[in-house]
């Protein structure tokens, strides 16, 4: 279960941070400050949540309206031509295309919690055309990597955090964020596609040499260790 492994990961992050801090405080004699930090940290989590709660409510409401007005579908139609280049297999079979474009649209609009279910549906649709279950297809990798560098037009939580830290111009970072995330997305897609081309030619090579048509999975990344 994904939620299980994620919680485990969070637990590990928590332990590593705390143990590192304890040792560092022991060495530098900051133990008193460390005790205070525990209490302050817990209190700050509450103030932070409170200051984010308003904008989270507002924005989830706004996004719900955009969703009800079919903005996701409209944007999906706009980006459909792009999918031909990014997802050639899915484009040929037609499986998963709608989910992929809905996922990308939801990301752009900043409806993060809508993007993940779309992506999982898209992965399931792509898996149906997978000649080798258990091994990621090129389209799956493109989709996943695309989502690790997604363009979000309005990162509201970030803006709210900046505002609650007393920034007079919280939105000043928007244009740099757009440029940077566009560049990252471009790179992510290029990497996802070009690494797969390199691998394909390798496989072709090995079959030409009549060695074996076993996929060269060993050099790739092993499955995610839970």
């Amino acid at each position: 279960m994904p939620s299980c492994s994620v919680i485990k990961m969070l637990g590990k992050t928590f332990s590593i941070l705390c143990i590192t801090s304890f040792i560092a405080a022991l060495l530098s004699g900051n133990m008193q400050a460390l005790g205070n930090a525990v209490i302050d940290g817990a209190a700050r989590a509450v103030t932070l949540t409170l200051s984010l709660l308003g904008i989270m409510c507002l924005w989830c409401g706004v996004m719900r309206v955009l969703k009800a007005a079919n903005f996701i579908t409209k944007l999906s139609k706009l980006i459909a031509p792009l999918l031909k280049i990014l997802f050639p297999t899915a484009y040929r079979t037609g499986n998963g295309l709608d989910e992929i474009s809905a996922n990308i649209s939801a990301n752009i609009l900043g409806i993060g919690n809508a993007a993940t279910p779309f992506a999982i549906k898209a992965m399931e649709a792509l898996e149906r055309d997978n000649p080798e279950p258990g091994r990621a297809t090129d389209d799956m990798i493109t989709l996943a990597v695309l989502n690790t560098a997604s363009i979000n037009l309005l990162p509201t939580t970030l803006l709210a955090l900046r505002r609650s830290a007393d920034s007079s111009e919280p939105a000043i970072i928007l244009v740099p964020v757009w440029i940077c995330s566009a560049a990252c997305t471009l790179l992510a897609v290029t990497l996802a596609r070009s690494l797969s081309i390199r691998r394909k030619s390798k496989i072709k090579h090995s079959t030409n040499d009549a060695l074996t048509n076993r996929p060269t999975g060993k050099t790739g990344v092993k499955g995610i260790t839970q």
Partner: protein
Amino acid sequence: MEVLSSLAIPSVILLISLMLLFSKHAYFDEFLEGAKDGLRTGVNLLPTLVALMVAVSMLSASGAVDYVAGLLAPLGEAIGVPMELLPLIITRPVSGSGSTAILADLFDKYGPDSFTGLCASVIMGSSETMIYVIAVYFSSVNVKRTRHALPAAFLTMIFCIFFSCLICRLFFA
């Protein structure tokens, strides 16, 4: 550019208001339903945030970050990345709430409009919790061999850090 940035949020609100005014659809009901969802999300976030915020503020008070950042500062200077960002860079790919906690801590320490604060904002805004995304996506279809997904995502993240700092230098210097 600044006009564009400051226009972004108000124009979305304007769009919603116009939709409420001119459409027959019960959009305000939708809005209220969505806002309730937001409330639930926010409240559910609190327990995780308490744990991570405690961990982050301990780390910050222990002096460990300052020590490592001090050691790496010359390297950071050479590659143009403020080393105060180190905790954010490490946490960002793993945990969304963890990096939120660290970002809040960085804003507290250096201010949201300092160079460090601006770089941190751009990194936060243009990257995702990549390990989480890859774990959830591939485990949903039981794919164990993720091939070049992780290297591609990892390289993108590194590029994102450099490019964020570069773009902040160009925009805000």
